[in-house]
């Protein structure tokens, strides 16, 4: 019981610490739509310092600068495309979590489909082969059937 209590306490403590670590910034917007655009944009832009985080989640200094920049550009009335362009001209496609389809990114976009379809084809081929394999379709003989019955009735 004590161990359980200790684990619970540990989990609660970890939650409290991680909640405290979440970046909190006061941002003023003209309307709810701007706020929504801000949230969407910072979730889609990647932080270049801690590369597996978007700039919404990242604590890095650079991410804070980029959030400030996105906020400023929204207030100035820039469209989402303009803001994305602004980031891409400075940091390249890498800054986007959804990079555009280009010659360089064909493998990135195409590989999942190729592998997925390849896997399905492989599976179908295997299933068909197994189906036509005489070894698995031979009916059980009387002795085997008796053994099967005794196994099933064992419980």
């Amino acid at each position: 019981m004590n161990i359980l209590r200790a684990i619970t306490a540990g989990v609660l403590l970890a939650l409290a610490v991680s909640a405290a670590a979440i970046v909190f910034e006061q941002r003023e917007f003209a309307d709810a739509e701007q706020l929504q655009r801000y949230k969407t944009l910072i979730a889609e832009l990647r932080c270049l310092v801690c590369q597996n985080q978007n700039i919404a989640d990242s604590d890095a200094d650079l991410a804070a600068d980029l959030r400030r920049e996105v906020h400023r550009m929204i207030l100035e009335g820039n469209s989402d495309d303009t803001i994305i362009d602004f980031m891409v001209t400075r940091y390249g496609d890498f800054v986007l979590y959804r990079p555009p389809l280009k010659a360089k990114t064909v493998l990135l976009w195409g590989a999942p489909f190729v592998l997925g379809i390849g896997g399905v084809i492989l599976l179908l081929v295997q299933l068909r082969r197994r189906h036509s394999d005489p070894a698995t379709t031979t009916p059980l003989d009387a002795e085997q059937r008796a053994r099967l019955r005794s196994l099933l009735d064992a419980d």
Partner: protein
Amino acid sequence: MSRYLLPLGVFIALVVLLGVGLSLNPRLVPSPLVGKPLPDFTLATLRSPDKSLARKDLTGKISLLNAWATWCVECRREHPVLLAIAAEGKVPVYGLNYKDQRPAALQWLQRLGDPYIASAFDGDGRVGLDLGVYGLPETFLVDEQGMIVYKHIGPISREIWESDFVPVIEGLRSGSG
């Protein structure tokens, strides 16, 4: 035996692909700014806040722009190399003091030596953002027309200077001369 060849081949191909992927440095993001003009900027210099350093000060010649800060450990490692490059005098070296404190930066230059003709003081990092700076130190090689011809992320070592920068500089010189 042959039924294992296909899976084995696929496995080996995957190992090679992932092996190459692992050997790449994910921090080296290709800069979209190489081959583009150096963004326009005007900033106060580090030494005298009433004087400014602007884009036009760097153009008209081949120059080096090095983004640095006192909080950047790798910049300290790079510093002696920059001093040597400046002493060599092949290209003028300019600094961009990125998101730093003025007194600390001045003290650093006084203590370790100043390789820069001038350093622009980019306290809020706004110019750094235009330059796509994300990990100090970063060094831009700018040609006479003000185009960024080369960018290096991370500290420049003697070897990197000789192998990556010098040939480009000499190529530019022989091309224009």
